[in-house]
């Protein structure tokens, strides 16, 4: 096994382990906190202290630092997966059809109509109050919408 492949394997495993550790910690905090909440409905499932203990403790912090060091080493040594992102099946010259999406008929007209429609909608929205809907939603934090609960 060459050095490059070894680095890539180590880094891939570290990334997976780091995410597994974070997910497992979150689920563990939730389950422990849920039991505490059953006893006292006013208690909190997550606290800053519990989260800090996970982020700054074993195994999350060592895994993160190790992964960071491996990333820097790979970047300095120019190690990367050369085949990455290349298609499994190479498109050949014999591929039928045009390379680009065919230009739609009446392209300019279609753009102008859509553009005009967009402007009409925006003006109509300002008058029917839907602009206020956007503003109202954007300036208040809806806790459930962002996953806070």
């Amino acid at each position: 096994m060459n050095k490059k492949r070894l680095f890539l394997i180590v880094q891939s495993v570290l990334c997976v382990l780091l995410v597994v550790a974070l997910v497992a910690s979150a689920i563990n905090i939730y389950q422990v906190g849920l039991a505490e909440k059953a006893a006292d409905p006013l208690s909190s499932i997550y606290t800053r202290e519990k989260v800090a203990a996970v982020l700054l403790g074993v195994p999350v912090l060592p895994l993160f630092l190790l992964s960071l060091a491996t990333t820097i080493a790979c970047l300095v040594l120019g190690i990367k997966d050369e085949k990455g992102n290349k298609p499994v099946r190479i498109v050949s010259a014999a591929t039928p059809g045009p390379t680009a999406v065919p230009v739609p008929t009446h392209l300019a007209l279609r753009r102008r109509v859509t553009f005009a429609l967009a402007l009409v909608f925006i003006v109509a929205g300002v008058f029917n109050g839907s602009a206020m809907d956007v503003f109202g939603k954007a300036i208040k934090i809806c806790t459930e919408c962002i996953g806070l609960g």
Partner: protein
Amino acid sequence: MDKTTNTTSRSLRPSTRRLIQLYSALLHNAYVKGFIDGEIYQGKAKYACVPGLNCYSCPAAAGACPLGSIQNALASTGHRAGWYVMGIILLFGVTLGRTICGWLCPFGLIQELLHKIPSFKLRKSRFTRALSYLKYVILAIFVIAIPLYYGLTQDIPMPGFCKYICPAGTLGGAIGLLANPHNTDLFGMLGIFFTRKFVILMLITLACVFCYRTFCRFICPLGAIYGLFNHFSLTGVRVDENCCNHCGACVNTCKMDVLRVGDHECINCAQCVDVCPKKAITFNAGTVVLKAPEASFTAEEKNDRQKKGRLAWAIALAVLVGALVWFNFLDPAAKQSGNGGSADATAITGYEPGKQLEDFTLECLDGSSFHLADTRGKPVFINLWATYCTPCVQELPYFSDLYTQHEDDIAMLAVHSSVVTDDPAEFLANKGWAMPFATDTSDDTLWKIVNGSSTLPQTIVLDRDGVVIYNQVGSVTPDVLEKLYEQAAAPAKTSASSEQASSSAAN
């Protein structure tokens, strides 16, 4: 060694596209002060939607997220059509198409940076191409069907994608707010929603390391919408079919699941421009060529383009500096904001547990008047809500039940935010909720007295002496309400109950 160093420095040097992505991410999040204050921007710029996926609850967000806005608009279909956000999305679509994904989207940038982490990379195939249609299913179910269903049948604004999936909201909104030391009380509301969305965020993050733009390719409904405009948008990659020899170099180089240059999967990153052996591909905005193979320009044209490029960057930087100064220092909303609202520790009145809440009078929607001083001797529940806040609307029946259950020995007031999009009286007409409702006409009245923030919902509980025993943002359950009632109704003098509730809140 020299060769390796040169290669490394070349690979680390940011491309023009990367610089534009960084620039766009900064412009999307120009309210940097939000990260310091732990509050979101509440100025007029939030009337405008930004082009990329950028949660409007991110502390630094300067505009509204188009995806969140369209879900909110669909949920409000029963009241009014969301023409405004539809117009904005049409405008972005016809002018930029998926160029937004490739050049402007902050979450696209994050995904690309994650993919820079050296590891084995997943190769694109028929499987990934088939999976790229998943985002249309997600668009149909989570962005269209769920908000429409809940909006029309239950009058609840339910942003399905934001609530169940959106990793940009979890990262920018939830984690962005939680990371601020001012927002310790937000931890109190975390539960199953946060755990589920955190797991989704982690899985997408991991997938992005191994698979280029996982979220963008397979999940993002905003990309799906912009993709519908891609073949006729003003900006995009074009192929001169007269020069093209159909070698397939463009499609083979592309990291997205494109079958043709410029199809609905193409994010117009223009990397194919450099690999075309026949110099047949250009990146255009209308008739203006933004990127073309170097060899297709004369020396004079190259010089001219360099000058124009420098001028464009100078203007762009001036705009960025202007935006940063405006949003953080000059905007009236920025001047008003700040988390310096903590009460004087020695004061007797205040909004914190253990303090006597300052007296206030509010006109209720039914014409009666709520005067806090008149409620002495009863436990008092104050709820801050808004018609456009999903958890607010969902928890109001719990308050109503509590009010009905203890009607003779409870005072309750549900106060709508001063930002009104639907008439609260009309909204409440058929709900049958028992407690009195009022609207805060200005955030300087009740909102200020109870330290109401931009986060909704919020519940404030006072004991029989008018002393605060609970003041927290976030949803409450019937169990929590009953427990709070027991504490507030306890006949003993305030100190014991307030200290107990405040210590629970602090935890």
